[in-house]
């Protein structure tokens, strides 16, 4: 089989040149994971900024701005993303040093107490007023297990706690109010770890502040370097934030509305947002199928969050299994649909030249992806 281009041509219009302040929802199911598509978004943004010649090949490349990416991952660690991106030819560690990329780890220490910090010498800056009893969250026990399941495609399960990569200091204090242009803050390592503390919207606000600090850090250098094109665009990739919803739930006063508002808050800091969500049948339909049984709070909240996000999205990329069963040369079906917010602004530039489409895709052993129409 011939080697595939990193960005399949059918996919290129949907992953590059995202309209401003747009939200793209990427829905996945257990059998059809969206890691490869998330990586294609990273590639489209970062590779184009690596070599400006490549940007021209995408058409309308002349007015492309520099793109930076903040990846907030709730289910997979830094090692996983670094290894997967390497197969595409992206060196995330180097891009982190160049401040074109930042990784926010929402997995390792989201519920960990302060003592489990892997590098105890560096102080954790997030306010840790949590009583340690909150961390294991006994009542949320079965719930996160259910969401962690899709982790199976990771080469090593939860690798993010390993020693941080080539960066000099794994992480340095990033106070939310730290002046981003200060030279001291250059030593921010590849991984910023989120820590959930407290309850309800206030806890989400703290997470939002942490992520905003990372975004501001990326932006800050562009402003300080005083180049001609300092208005770089930051693409925020939220990888499965539904873990937060599943792991906290009504007991911590976090519901679909709070999550939606949290995402809206994050959207304000960045140019465009890509969010992956699980759209498995039980998570979406148990809440609406009336009469079978009482839906659990998780089912209701997840369905409300996922469907509500699709209403807010400009584009919904839906991955699912092949309807006719597993096949050797097809991994799944990709359906691109316009979301509820599509067409809100009148100028056609902001809407992009997207058209709805359904295609098959195949993830090869080497990580290359082939996207093709039915029967091609």
């Amino acid at each position: 089989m011939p080697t595939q281009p990193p960005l399949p041509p059918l996919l290129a219009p949907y992953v590059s040149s995202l309209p401003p302040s747009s939200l793209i929802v990427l829905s996945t199911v257990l059998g059809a994971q969206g890691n490869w598509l998330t990586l294609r978004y990273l590639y489209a943004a970062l590779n184009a900024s690596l070599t400006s010649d490549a940007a021209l090949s995408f058409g309308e490349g002349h007015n492309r701005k520099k793109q930076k990416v903040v990846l907030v991952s709730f289910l997979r660690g830094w090692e996983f993303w670094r290894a997967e991106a390497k197969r595409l030819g992206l060196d995330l560690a180097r891009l982190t040093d160049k401040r074109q990329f930042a990784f926010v780890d929402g997995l390792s220490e989201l519920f960990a107490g302060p003592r489990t910090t892997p590098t105890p010498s560096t102080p954790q800056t997030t306010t840790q007023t949590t009583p340690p009893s909150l961390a294991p969250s006994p009542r949320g026990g079965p719930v996160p297990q259910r969401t962690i399941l899709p982790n199976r495609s990771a080469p090593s399960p939860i690798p993010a706690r390993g020693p941080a990569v080539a960066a000099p200091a794994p992480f340095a204090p990033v106070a939310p109010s730290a002046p981003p242009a200060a030279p001291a803050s250059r030593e921010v390592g590849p991984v910023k770890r989120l820590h959930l503390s407290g309850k309800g919207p206030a806890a989400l606000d703290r997470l939002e502040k942490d992520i905003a600090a990372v975004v501001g850090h990326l932006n800050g250098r562009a402003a300080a370097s005083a180049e001609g094109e300092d208005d770089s665009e930051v693409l925020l990739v939220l990888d499965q934030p539904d873990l937060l919803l599943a792991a906290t739930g009504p007991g911590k006063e976090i519901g679909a509305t709070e999550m939606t508002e949290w995402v809206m808050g994050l959207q304000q800091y960045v140019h465009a947002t890509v969010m992956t969500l699980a759209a498995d049948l039980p998570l979406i339909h148990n809440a609406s199928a009336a009469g079978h049984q009482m839906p659990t709070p998780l089912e209701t909240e997840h369905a409300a969050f996922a469907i509500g996000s699709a209403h807010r999205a400009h584009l919904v990329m839906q991955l699912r299994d092949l309807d006719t069963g597993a096949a050797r040369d097809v991994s799944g079906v990709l359906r691109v649909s316009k979301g509820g917010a599509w067409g809100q602004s009148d100028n056609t530039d902001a809407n992009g030249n997207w058209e709805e489409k359904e295609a098959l895709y195949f993830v090869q052993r080497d990580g290359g992806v082939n996207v093709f129409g039915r029967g091609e």
Partner: protein
Amino acid sequence: MAPTNTSHRQTHNLLLISKLLSLRDTASPLALVLDSLEQPATPLIKEYIRRAKLSKVHITFVAFETLKPLEGVDAFVAARKKSPLEIIKAVNEAYPNVSTSGPSRRRLILIDAINPLLHARRTDAQFNVSSFLSSFLMPHGPPTASKVEASLVVTFHQDVPSPPLPSPYTPSPLSMLTYLATTIIRLHSFSHIMAQKAARDRSLVPPVFGLEEELDGVLLGRLDKPIGNETAQGVVLELEHRRKSGRGVLEWYILPPASRYPPQYAKEIVTLLDDHPLYRPPEEPDFGAGEEEPESTFELRLTDRQRRDREGVVLPYFDAQQGDGPGEGGRILYDMGEEDDFDEEEDEI
């Protein structure tokens, strides 16, 4: 009867939708727009804004899930992280409280989605949808000289599941809203309506789309160009309007896509769904077809001579009515033709 009915519907119901969308005479203070992922409310909201701009109505947009203001909106109130009371306050402040000398001004308040508010944990048990919505229509502030006629358009996503109710006796938010609303507009995608109609015309089960398919991983089923149906664009509005008298009006309309007409176009663009060339009532083509005899390999028509002969036949019961006595009536009278053979055993008379 049918043609007069259609023309009556055309005149009256088109007038009604034009009044409702253009917010004339405060025909409907609270319009509830029920949309779904298959047909979002965005085209209808933009049509409301377009018409309000034409008639210079002040537009306030209450955004629960929109980040950037839509074009043409006068005031944009971000409702994110606000309590209902704060939203009411912000909306009331958004209206320029100038006691203009002119007649009572009109204002339009659009709520992009009421679902987040109904879902939010910050809304406590005391929160009441009806009082929340009515406080927009009747502000509690000091009675100003110029009365403001406010119209409220609330969008509700039908497919977002509702949170569990606090008590089994409280009505669901949707039933509360449908009870309060004076106008309910349900949105459908025209291509889906066409596909369902085509199935019904063949007595097939109408297809469902998107979430209703209940397929794993499918949130949206909409595709731009369903095969062979390229012109089926537009939004179908299923309107239910409650008049002041209490009588309800039900009608189906179609709103063409915004690219089909200029933004300043003042004439009515909404038409009845039945008048759309792609959606005709199924009886019409059958009228013409009824005139012709079905073709057959048999000659079923009669010649004149055959008809005369048939009329001349006296059927047995006519004879029986003359009452010549028992056993006399009811005989079969038969005049032998030339070609008949006389058979003694059978044809004894």
